[in-house]
């Protein structure tokens, strides 16, 4: 800086010839080059930052997709199941309670033994039944319950394989034979006693493959079931429905309160020390760690007001408290962006302040408010910490049917799955993350669409 001033000083005379001389001098050209060089450096830095961010995002997405996509398919085993009356309904009463309480696992076991008659001995037979999921028995029960005439017949059925067999065939358990390799199994490198699938089971699976009793199909369970300890029976529907209920509560609480607060502060409140204080505090609230809102929910909503634990109602209120500052700040920005000339125009024809806001300012600010709200909701959708504090981290199998039912939410479900020891939960965790990201992208797309659609020029 100083050298520039000095060099200008040397040339700073008032004669036009001198001035022209300075602008044509080598020194000025050097100065110019330095200016362009710093501009280039700045641009390169900017591009590098964007490329870095893009690469990180791509790596993240690629790893999630690579880990998660196998979860969308599931291994199934074909069995010839005989619905023996002596097992299901020995008394022949067709009583519903008898049908639902019957030992369907025995039907599965005998169907498996029909395929592998040489499997004898308690332990070996046990290993044999471990090939299929315990969900297979529930599948049989549901079939019989809805159609009791099946009793006595033999049917060819595709039932879910157990998670171990599924993982083995997806190559996640490091032992596979020639046949298994066709479906993705890995060669045997790990000693038998360190594997979830022993050599005998590997042999059985080989035979099943040869007999074409194994197939892969789309994993509908993942989207239609609640949580389960058995990975092949675990689904995200419970989390999705819980998230929807929670978000609905959050939306219904945060938007009216947030927009009303923003309108009051922006359009009606006098500018004084108190409103200034409120403004600063709203901005501070936006920066408060979300778990603090969870603690608030725990001590006030659960302990003081006695609201039910793990309920979407409580989770929604907590998330509403967390989203409120975002909604208020976005709404105020949208209201500020409405040109004052519109307010003048409305006041000028005699509209009351309330009419100015409701007829003119609010409709014009609506796209901005909507965008802010959706972004706030997307933030709430991804939130875990405050919900844990109000008990939404419980293991809940049932799909919640109301606002006070015990529920969990999608991100908490992801957290719990990521914590589970079973190998099959790893891919399901990534799959659930993909679903969550899908929801977030959809919400942001809606926000962009609405903004484009309702944006008005003035």
């Amino acid at each position: 800086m100083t050298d520039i001033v000095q060099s200008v000083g040397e040339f700073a005379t008032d004669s036009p010839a001198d001035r022209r001389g300075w602008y044509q001098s080598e020194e000025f050209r050097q100065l110019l080059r330095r200016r362009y060089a710093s501009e280039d450096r700045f641009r390169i830095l900017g591009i590098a930052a964007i490329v870095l961010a893009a690469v990180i995002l791509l790596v993240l997405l690629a790893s999630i997709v690579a880990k998660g996509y196998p979860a969308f398919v599931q291994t199934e085993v074909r069995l010839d199941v005989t619905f023996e009356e002596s097992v299901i309904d020995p008394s022949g009463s067709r009583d519903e309670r008898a049908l639902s309480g019957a030992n369907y696992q025995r039907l599965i076991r005998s169907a498996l033994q029909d395929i592998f008659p040489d499997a004898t001995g308690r332990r070996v037979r046990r290993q044999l039944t471990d090939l299929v999921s315990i969900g297979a028995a529930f599948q049989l029960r549901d079939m019989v319950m809805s159609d009791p005439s099946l009793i006595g017949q033999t049917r060819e059925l595709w039932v879910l394989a157990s998670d171990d067999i599924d993982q083995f065939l997806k190559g996640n358990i490091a032992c596979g034979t020639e046949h298994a390799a066709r479906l993705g199994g890995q060669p045997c490198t790990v000693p038998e006693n360190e594997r979830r699938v022993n050599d005998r089971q590997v042999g059985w699976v080989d035979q099943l493959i040869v007999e074409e009793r194994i197939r892969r199909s789309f994993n509908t369970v993942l989207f239609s079931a609640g949580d389960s300890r058995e990975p092949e029976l675990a689904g995200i529907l419970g989390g999705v429905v819980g998230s929807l209920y929670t978000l609905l509560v959050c939306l219904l609480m945060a938007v009216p309160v947030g927009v009303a607060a923003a309108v009051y502060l922006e359009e009606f409140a006098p500018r004084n020390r108190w409103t200034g204080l409120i403004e600063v505090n709203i901005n501070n609230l936006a920066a408060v760690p979300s778990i603090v809102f969870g603690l608030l929910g725990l001590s006030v909503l659960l302990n003081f007001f006695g609201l039910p634990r793990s309920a979407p109602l409580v989770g929604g209120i907590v998330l509403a408290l967390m989203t409120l500052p975002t909604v208020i700040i976005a709404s105020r920005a949208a209201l500020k962006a409405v040109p004052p000339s519109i307010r003048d125009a409305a006041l000028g024809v005699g509209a009351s302040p309330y009419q100015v806001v409701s007829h003119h300012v609010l409709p014009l600010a609506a796209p901005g408010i909507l965008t802010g709200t959706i972004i706030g909701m997307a933030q709430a959708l991804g939130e875990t910490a405050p919900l844990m504090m109000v008990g939404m981290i419980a293991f809940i199998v049932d799909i919640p049917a109301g606002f006070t039912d015990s529920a969990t939410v999608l991100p908490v479900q992801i957290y719990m799955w990521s914590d589970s020891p079973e190998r099959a939960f790893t891919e399901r965790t990534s799959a659930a993350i993909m679903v969550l990201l899908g929801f977030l992208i959809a919400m942001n797309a809606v926000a962009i669409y609405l903004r484009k659609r309702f944006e008005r020029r003035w």
Partner: protein
Amino acid sequence: MVSKMIDATTTPWVQVTAPGGGTGRIKIRSSGVKVYYGDKQALKGINLDIAENSVTALIGPSGCGKSTYLRCLNRMNDTIDRCRVEGTISLDGEDIYGRTIDTVQLRARVGMVFQKPNPFPKSIFDNVAYGPRIHGLARRIEDLEEIVQRSLERAGLWSEVKSRLLDPGTGLSGGQQQRLCIARAIAVNPEVILMDEPCSALDPIATAHIEELIDELRANYTIVIVTHNMQQAARVSQKTAFFHLGDLVEFNDTAEIFTNPRDDKTQGYITGRYG
């Protein structure tokens, strides 16, 4: 422009409208009007009487307080925080800063047209119909349509927009938008129309349009217009008030002000020596 103005004192370069006009009754009477923005005093005691059914022009250099005074007349200054008004302004003898006055009612009686055309981002029809709707001036849609048509006709815009009343008002040209704003102000049937530099954002042709319109509207409305354009003040107004640094320096018939100013500052301003 400037050289032309200097000639003004020697040879009248504009046809000054005949002095007087209107009913001769005083519509707005203001005495000792002082306005403060926070600690800053913007008006230092204005005494000004505005005659009914005439055009009163407020002229003066930027920041002299003429717009501030104009905005006092329909209490638009109320919307500015830290703005304080002292003194009395009466409309037909009633103090508009009194306790009993309602600002909504006042602004219906004293309409306003702003510097920048500011139609609502709604259709042309809705722009004009908005005021009558909120004030309950039309019970049936036919009445409303009639009010809209009459207002647009008076604003000289009807023939240009009658086929596209449902198009957005923001799609019109600048001059048309400003006439739409005048139609919107007329539609609520005010007694007084305040205009804050209504032509400063318009080209000369649109300006001529508006000026003609102002002259026609004078028959039915009391008009107060702030303008930076002294030719405009001379062309459209019967009375002219010259403001300077928050003071009312001179107030007289327009013809007098432009041909025979009493005050040196007025003379200096209208001849273009400063301001």
